[in-house]
């Protein structure tokens, strides 16, 4: 005895594929960013927990991590926000040609960043099996590297997709917009990592 429908509102006029909070995948990206942010927060918590046990943080003998690679990485990743923001605006304007060019720029920055990250690993001056300090340093760096690499992969796939005829659909611009949002999370989560790896132990010397 399914109830007879009483028609009240016609929703066919509503547009489809909205940006930001009007898109389901935007909420999905926010959900995953929450999960990863909790992961980062817990890893920082572990860092401070291990630190709280030591008389001198960065247990001796301690060779401070070289600042060059890390600082260079931080500068370049912050600069990468410029093409990223422009790409986000282009997506909102549904400007496909600009989007393809700017996303290429973001990918270029991504490659440079991945190369610098390679140097960062051996500028830590410690192995992951030396002590808990070394382990947690490597853990923070590796965790951020997985985020950097996966987002680079996402951007690359999206870039290849918008070069195909699929690029004309509005859906792709919504994806590009959310991809740019996630890139902000990647460099946003790097800043505390940078401080904990490179600067906090130096404060205690």
């Amino acid at each position: 005895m399914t109830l007879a429908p009483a028609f009240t509102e016609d929703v066919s006029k509503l547009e489809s594929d909205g940006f930001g909070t009007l898109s389901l995948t935007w909420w999905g990206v926010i959900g995953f960013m929450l999960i990863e942010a909790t992961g980062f927060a817990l890893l920082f918590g572990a860092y401070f927990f291990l630190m709280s046990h030591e008389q001198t943080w960065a247990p001796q003998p301690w060779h401070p991590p070289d600042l060059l690679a890390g600082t260079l990485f931080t500068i370049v990743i912050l600069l990468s926000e410029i093409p990223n923001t422009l790409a986000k605006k282009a997506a909102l304007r549904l400007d496909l040609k600009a989007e393809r060019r700017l996303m290429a720029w973001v990918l270029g920055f991504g490659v440079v960043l991945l190369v610098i990250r390679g140097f960062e690993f051996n500028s830590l001056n410690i192995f992951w099996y030396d002590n808990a300090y070394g382990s947690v340093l490597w853990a923070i760096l590796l965790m951020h590297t997985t985020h950097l690499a996966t987002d680079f992969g996402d951007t690359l796939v999206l870039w290849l997709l918008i070069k195909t005829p699929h690029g004309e659909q509005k859906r792709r611009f919504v994806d590009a917009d959310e991809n740019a949002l996630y890139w902000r999370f990647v460099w946003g989560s790097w800043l505390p990592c940078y401080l904990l790896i490179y600067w906090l132990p130096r404060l205690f010397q």
Partner: protein
Amino acid sequence: MSSRFPNKLAAVALLALLCGCHRDQQQPRGQPLGETVPAAASPDTIFPGGATPAPLDPRAADYEHNAYAIAQGQQLFTWMNCVGCHAHGGGGMGPALMDGKWRYGGRIDQIASSIADGRPNGMPAWRGKLTNQQIWQLAAYVRSLSGQVRKDAVGARADTMSNTPPQTETIRKPVEPADSAQ
């Protein structure tokens, strides 16, 4: 289903699963009571070149890649103060155990007989101080120091100061008898 399923990885997983089943077998009792180390495997059966060494002792299979035996051996290595002469495998008064050189043979039964009967230049005989099962467990651990043991049967580190790279990272050293001229 059209999938580029990596068969190689699946095969590895299946193999790892199957051969895992006896890796963890715990034998608290060890071999039957009254068993002794075969007298035949004494140092003089080892001579350079030519003649083949004695056939491998059947018990080797129970100890060589058995995680429980290696872990007990690691504990005994510390308890019986082997560290005093051999350090953590790097050697000190006693010879290094992590390199591939074995003056009295690198096979597990030869190492067991080195422990049981002792060796000149200061290696004490542990027969009578340790049971045969403990001697074989020590031999299994000593073999793992030079990377001879499968990586999934070895613990990466001990709950002690980290003195060597993780055992799961040690590269397998080729086993070659040292020149007996020393």
